[in-house]
């Protein structure tokens, strides 16, 4: 493997010249001038990418924990191979140990499938049994190893907790190979995997070998796991399979994008985690990587653009604002209508509407009315006047007309199709109109046989409560609010 090491060094560009200024270890790590750090970084990053991609499918297939059972099941393989190679007089060889890990990990995965399909055991029970029994056997075997060979067995503990710093150039190439393989498979049979995860019944009825595809996924998990044994250890490798994929779901609703985001989060957590643990000598790499990934998850949970808490909150707020806008504009239009002015478009500014009317007709606080009015002014829909009145702009008037039309259609539809009374229909329409989608409007138009797209039907009930403007106090709004 000398060739590999040389190539890696060549790719990374070796800094042969001694730097003029002596630099700290952290500096050397962060600038990647240390060869070992580079190797470990490449290795773990590629591992993170592979696990991120694969994790998306495992999560969508609702088999995320299968990876946990498989990774725990690798321990007896490692220990047994070690015992065997010692008794046979071979030197301790990483490749042999990993082959042993792959065999027992694969066996663990297949045992889960067998328990489910043959013994008809529930998935959680099957996972629990395989995980604990295989891991238990592994722990027992490691105990024997320690009795037999004392300190020599310490190497095996690296598999349990991970020891990325021990990664060699060969391991990095192994990671690269695993990442490439997973990418290739996702690219080649992505659509088969998609159909398997979404609708396995359709997959089966179309003749896709569901069991074979599931086995392939398990084989890939085994592959990623044995590569990950070195970097994060068998207990924590599940984190790389689950966390990036779960985090990516917050960023997108498209499978392709989720795959890309998950691979990025996986790769980034591994590289940042590796660098951090290399900078601070006492930090174990596996745990650091997992904690960084967890940070990525937290950020996604809060800021994720598709399902993150912040965006959902903002969306919710925007929806509430939209509702208030619609009510505000509808009121303004109906007021103009009641003044018999709404027919053809009236000249902007010709008819002012007192805000006190609005406050009176809706259960809004003066503060809220003012805030909505100001927001609408920013949208160029109303003009706030200094005398506590508003005017509709042309734009605002057009929007108001559309809103009123939708409200009335819905109201009349409710009156016709359900047995609610007039007031209830108005309230229901008040609530329902905000959920109208374009296709509902089309249906509504059809159902109500609306003559044209612009006609506003007359309201089925009297528009304004019988109040006279003079009954209301002339200044209801706080002085300081209206100048903004």
């Amino acid at each position, binding site marked *: 493997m000398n060739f590999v090491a040389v190539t890696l060094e060549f790719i990374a560009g070796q800094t042969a010249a001694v730097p003029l200024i002596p630099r700290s270890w952290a500096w050397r790590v962060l600038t990647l001038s240390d060869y070992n750090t580079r190797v470990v970084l490449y290795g773990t990053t590629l591992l993170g990418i592979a696990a991120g991609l694969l994790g998306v499918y495992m999560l969508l297939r609702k088999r995320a924990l299968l990876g946990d059972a498989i990774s725990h099941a690798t321990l007896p393989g490692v220990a047994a191979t070690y015992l065997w190679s010692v008794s046979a007089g071979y030197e301790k060889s990483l490749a042999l140990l990993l082959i042993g890990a792959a065999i027992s990990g694969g066996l663990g995965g297949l045992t889960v499938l067998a328990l489910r399909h043959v013994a008809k055991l529930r998935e959680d029970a099957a996972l629990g049994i395989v995980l604990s029994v295989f891991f238990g056997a592994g722990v027992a075997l490691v105990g024997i190893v320690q009795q037999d060979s004392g300190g020599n067995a310490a190497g095996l503990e690296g598999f349990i907790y991970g020891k990325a710093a021990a990664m060699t150039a060969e391991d990095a190439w192994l990671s690269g190979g695993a990442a490439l393989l997973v990418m290739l498979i996702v690219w080649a049979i992505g659509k088969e995997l*998609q*159909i398997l995860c979404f609708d396995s019944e*359709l997959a*089966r009825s179309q003749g896709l070998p569901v069991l074979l595809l599931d086995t392939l996924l398990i084989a890939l998990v085994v592959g990623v796991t044995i590569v990950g044994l070195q970097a994060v250890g068998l207990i924590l490798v599940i984190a790389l399979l689950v966390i990036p994929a779960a985090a990516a779901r917050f960023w997108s609703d498209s499978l392709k994008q989720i795959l890309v985001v998950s691979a990025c989060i996986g790769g980034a957590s591994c590289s940042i985690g590796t660098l951090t643990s290399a900078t601070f000598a006492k930090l174990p790499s596996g745990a650091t990587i997992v904690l960084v990934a967890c940070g990525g998850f937290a950020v996604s949970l809060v800021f994720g653009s598709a399902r993150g808490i912040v965006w959902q909150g903002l969306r919710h707020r925007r929806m509430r604002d939209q509702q208030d806008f619609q009510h505000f504009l509808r009121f303004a239009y109906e007021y103009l209508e009641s003044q018999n002015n709404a027919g053809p478009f009236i000249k902007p500014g010709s008819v002012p509407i007192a805000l006190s009317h609005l406050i009176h007709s809706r259960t809004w606080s003066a503060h809220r009315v003012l805030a909505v009015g100001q927001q609408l002014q920013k949208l160029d829909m109303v003009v706030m006047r200094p005398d506590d009145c508003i005017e509709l702009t042309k734009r605002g008037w057009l929007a108001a007309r559309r809103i009123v039309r939708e409200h009335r259609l819905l109201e009349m539809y409710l009156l016709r199709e359900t047995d609610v009374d007039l007031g209830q229909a108005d309230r229901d329409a008040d609530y329902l109109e905000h959920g109208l989608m374009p*296709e509902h409007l089309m249906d509504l138009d059809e159902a109500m046989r609306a003559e044209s797209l612009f006609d506003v039907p007359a309201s089925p009930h009297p528009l304004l409560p019988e109040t006279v403007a003079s009954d209301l106090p002339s200044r209801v709004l706080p002085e300081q609010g209206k100048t903004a």
Partner: protein
Amino acid sequence: MKTTVVSSVVKMSADAPLSVRDITVAYHRKPVLWNVTLDVPGASMVGLVGPNGAGKSTLLKAIVGMVPRISGEVRIFGKEYHHHRSAVAYVPQRESVDWDFPATALDVVMMGTYGQLGWFGRVTKKERQAAHEALRQMEIEHLAERQISQLSGGQQQRTFLARALVQQADLYLMDEPFAAVDAATENAIVNIMRTLQSAGKTIVVVHHDLHTAREYFDRIVLLNTRLIAAGKTADVFTDENLQKTYGGKLTLLEEVGDAMRRRDRSNSP
């Protein structure tokens, strides 16, 4: 135990779209389908009717090889199912999938083309157009880019139907397409079924509502673990047959099944 089979098609036609012979299916030794024999003639619209747990869905699944059968055989246009997969479009129950899956309506419909594309086949413009066309037929083309989690129940069912349409099959097997959908969707589905039928396709539908069954289907299969009756709607929908289907439970079969399970349990160490 001999079952009485009332089938209007006595002679088994070699290339009938669907021909089922003596199918028996059991879950954990409890019989779900018992010796069912059935022939479905071409260009017919068949309602599969029976009480809950009568094995209607299981019959469809047994036809497409999704549940193992203890005995019996299935022929699709005279051939075994796995030789004739492309001729069959199976529409599972809507609840059988996770609608939170990251996909648009168009993505789901496109899955119907994967069977024809085969392994490693790439989706091209042709498949995309076919998917759009199917969505248009189900009157939801404007929802093509919408997330499936954002679709209403009826729209989700229409998406499933559109997916079956792009499969361009000759035999459609639909598991409760009318379950929990709005009236407009029910109409749209019936219309599309009629269109398919007039194009010479055969449709077998698991259905619950006895009132609409008479109106929708020209043939009815009454099922309650065993076949009660099959044939033209007018012939099959008699009080006597319905009484047999919905009246008494099949106590004998159930008791035998229970007895066998008890015996298994007491025999096991």
